[in-house]
């Protein structure tokens, strides 16, 4: 029997550990018969698990299967209730179809809005074949006629080097023209270029002025960026109250970074009294949008019962989401969760694996924990050489107290190692140091 492809194994392992994306991937493979034999029952099983975790792709795939006549019951319906399908649903958010011929006619007749819309169509390949040169041409016509939207759009092409050679000077010039006419997106982009010194000298003060203009028009990105300047006092007078207000406005528009920064202010009591309950709410909202720092902080609040009821299972879920994205602190915490069985079944092997991933990324705490596990043969084969290497790395980078423990441990191990083993250990340590981030 042929071995299972690595892609399937990888998704299966993660899916079995509860990862909704992996569950969807695996379910979809069974649905399509891709890399595995087609199996609708298994497809429904995995897709259902993903759907129950809110994976929208899985919901869509199940809906398609149901439309094909496959029996699908993924929604966990509480007893005593019946869900009535809306037979005449609202279809908000659907973009009206583009009629390129109509747009082209209006654009040729000199309608600037149509010129920009046609440029957008060419830029995104919607209704017409993607053609950046054509996009540039139409934007240019509108921009040169003084249309702010056209000037902004042309600025983005120069800014990103799309259909034209990248030019900070050109981008700034066009953004400036549009910004002067009150275009919020242009004001934000211009502010960003000035802040970063692209096409000129960095000047946070001038950047803040443009951000303020865009923020007043409700531009969430500008509200967020201006808030960061006000919070840090960079280029403007430090004003935490104003920063909080702007973060709140951007957060209300769904900006995950603003929600995260606001949560930090609320948790730490910056600019006012601390409110861990509200902080946890904002961490959750940012985490749900996939902001890894928020996932970690929300997990930590859940684990400690800070601002929210203690929930180790949920904490483990959020540690995993952040760990999967490579967050070292989350990986260490997840290792701890598995080691102690906090909200999950204790799994020393999984703990060792997460410590290893974090240790490779340079976490001194993970190096120490992994060293101890390797020394005692817990969760992985006992290996004094490997244990010495990890403890030595921990001794070099950990905080003083932990470093002392690591040194003590590595000294004990060193006494147990033969000269050959010691040489091998030193060689591995060197290699580790070289690859360490």
């Amino acid at each position, binding site marked *: 029997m042929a071995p299972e492809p690595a892609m399937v194994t990888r998704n299966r392992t993660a899916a079995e550990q509860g990862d*909704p994306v992996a569950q969807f991937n695996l379910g979809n493979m069974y649905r399509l018969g891709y890399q595995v034999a087609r199996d609708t029952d298994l497809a429904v099983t995995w897709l259902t*698990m993903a759907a*129950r*975790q*809110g994976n*929208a*792709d899985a*919901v869509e795939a199940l*809906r398609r299967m149901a439309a094909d006549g496959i029996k699908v019951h993924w*929604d*966990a*319906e*509480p*007893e*005593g*209730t*019946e*869900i*009535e*399908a*809306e*037979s*005449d*649903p*609202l*279809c*908000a*958010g*659907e973009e009206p179809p583009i009629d390129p011929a109509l747009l082209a006619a209006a654009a040729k007749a000199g309608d600037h809005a149509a010129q920009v819309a046609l440029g957008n169509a060419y830029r995104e390949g919607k209704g017409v074949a993607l053609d950046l040169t054509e996009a540039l041409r139409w934007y240019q016509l509108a921009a040169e006629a003084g249309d702010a939207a056209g000037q902004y759009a042309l600025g983005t092409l120069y800014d990103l080097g799309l259909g034209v050679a990248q030019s900070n000077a050109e981008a700034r010039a066009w953004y400036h023209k549009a910004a002067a006419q009150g275009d919020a997106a242009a004001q934000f982009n211009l502010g960003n270029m000035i802040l970063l010194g692209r096409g000129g000298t960095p000047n946070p003060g001038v950047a803040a002025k443009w951000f303020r203009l865009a923020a007043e028009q409700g531009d969430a990105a500008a509200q967020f960026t201006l808030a960061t300047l006000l919070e840090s006092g960079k280029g403007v007078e430090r004003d935490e109250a104003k920063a*909080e207000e702007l973060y*709140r406005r951007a957060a*209300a528009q*769904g900006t995950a970074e603003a929600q995260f920064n606001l949560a930090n202010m*609320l948790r730490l009591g910056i600019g*006012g*009294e*601390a*409110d861990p*309950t*509200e902080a*946890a*709410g904002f961490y*959750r*909202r940012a985490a*749900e*949008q*996939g902001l890894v720092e928020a996932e970690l902080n929300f997990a930590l609040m859940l684990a400690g019962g800070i601002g*929210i*009821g203690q929930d180790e299972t949920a904490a483990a*879920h959020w540690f995993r989401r952040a760990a999967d994205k490579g967050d070292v602190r989350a990986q260490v915490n997840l290792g701890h969760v598995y080691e102690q069985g906090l909200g999950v079944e204790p799994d020393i092997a999984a703990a060792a694996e997460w410590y290893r991933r974090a240790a490779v990324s340079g976490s001194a705490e993970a190096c120490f924990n992994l060293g101890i596990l390797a020394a005692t043969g817990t969760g992985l084969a006992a290996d004094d050489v490997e244990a010495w290497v990890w403890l030595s790395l921990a001794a070099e980078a950990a905080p003083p107290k932990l470093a002392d423990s690591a040194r003590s441990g590595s000294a004990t191990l060193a006494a147990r190692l033969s000269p050959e083993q010691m040489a091998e250990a030193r060689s591995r340590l060197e290699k580790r140091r070289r690859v360490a981030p």
Partner: protein
Amino acid sequence: MSGKSTSFEVQVLKDKNWVVETISTDESQAKEFADNLLQTTNHTAVRVVRDFQRIDGLHTETVVHEKTATEKNEKDLSLAAISEAPTCVGIDEFYALNARLTIGRLLRKYLDDIVITQTELLHNASELKRLGDKDRLLFSAVDKVSALQARATGEDGKVRRDFLQKSWEAVLARARQAVPKKAPGKLTLAGLMALAPGEGDEKRFQCLVLISLRLLETRSWFGKLEILLAWAAEEASTAADAPLPAMPIIDGIVSDIVVSAQVIQDLLGFQPNLGAALSHICDLAAGQAEAAKFAPPWFADFNKLFAAGHLPDSQEVLLSRVCRETKSTNPLSRNEPAKEFEEFNALLVRVVSRDSLVGGPAMADALFQRYVRFFNGGGTPGQAIEAILATLGDVCRKVQYLLEFAASPAGVALGKKPIDMLAALVRGARHIDVWVPVRGVLPRDRMAALASANRVLLSARVLTPELRTELGDIADAVMARYLEDEGVIEKIDKPEDPLALRAIRLVKFCGSGVLIEGKSLSMARSRVIGHLKQAQFEEKFLASVADPVQGEKHLREFHRLLVESGFR
């Protein structure tokens, strides 16, 4: 040219059989006639057959022309899937909101196709007959509704079907009797109402017959709404003592129109996703909406009618739409799946305020169903409620949610659990900081929110009297603690301020409604009484104001406020 022995039959396809429609001696005329038939009628195919009579008397038939209406899509006017139909017992109930809402949803495609409201249908004999003649649509509708009603009541399905059929005939007969002798023309609303004969309910019915005739002349939803808005403006400018108030009639027809998803979408204008659209509908139903891009120019006038409370039925229809959409599996953020929770959070915060829950138990239930389906990850209902509560954040909102949820179908199905959760929540909330956020809310609003939570707890029917008192007392104790910890009364009653100012501020505070009838109000009142009891209070009060005339005025104001605030 053809001879006498040749003729051309124009045939149309009816129920899988070719039927001769006409016979012509001219081939091109026959073909033209066939093409015309195909375009102007509902026939799916036409053909022309040449019939040639041979010398031996036998006939030879040849198809010389055949066309199928492939491009013509027969409109699907089938019934919509509904899973409940409120039971009706008398003919009057056929005209009521619930029945019209059910008809509006069940016959959506049909009504959208001919653009008539349920009211127009029920008050116009021709339209009723047209529906009756529409294939098996009426029969299927009666069948469907009777089955749903029989299932809900346990009544025999056939009995229910017979009742509905007879009621239908009665509705039709009533409409036939009411057909006016001549069309009313484009009269004003007052003109139409003056034309209607009869008194009381009969006059109302006759009015609706005339109004329906007028509206039937306009076959566009917005056209009808514009007429209704003009009538509403006319009504607002006429005397309030009209024999028949017109606003409920206008509300009834508007409520028919806003059943349609397409109408709502066109009304709302551009909405980035379903979540935003639902929040916007809540805003409109509350009369707090602002016109979005592409909204009709009269949106603000429409919104004002909701704000003035003139459209309660329409509000109910809109909110029932929000409930059903919330309950459905349609994503709130279809274009950006990562924002699904964000949109849910926005909707949750929009409908669950610190004062009330828009849509009541049905909405609480809908939010729960959505959470379970999208975010619960296979957890238990209890975990889902916990998670919704965590999303709501502060205890004031949580109390509003749990009280409504406890009365919802899902809450009832969970037995005592929602109430137990509520009791545990309130018993554990001993500081105002967990009831209302610490920042971003003014102190006065924090106290008002806590007082509102106390009121809702004390009036909650889902709680036993003992529990109401216990939980209400906790909110009161939290308020009293807040007053003490923050020195709120001391801040209002500053010793360095003139006595008149202190006394008036204090008594205003007592009557502001932000305090709870109990410990907290007693604390503030006792401070007022302390002032009143001091020797020569009135003299000191007057002496604290520089201008004696102003002093007298303030004293009178103080006494008036005292009475208003419940001091005797």
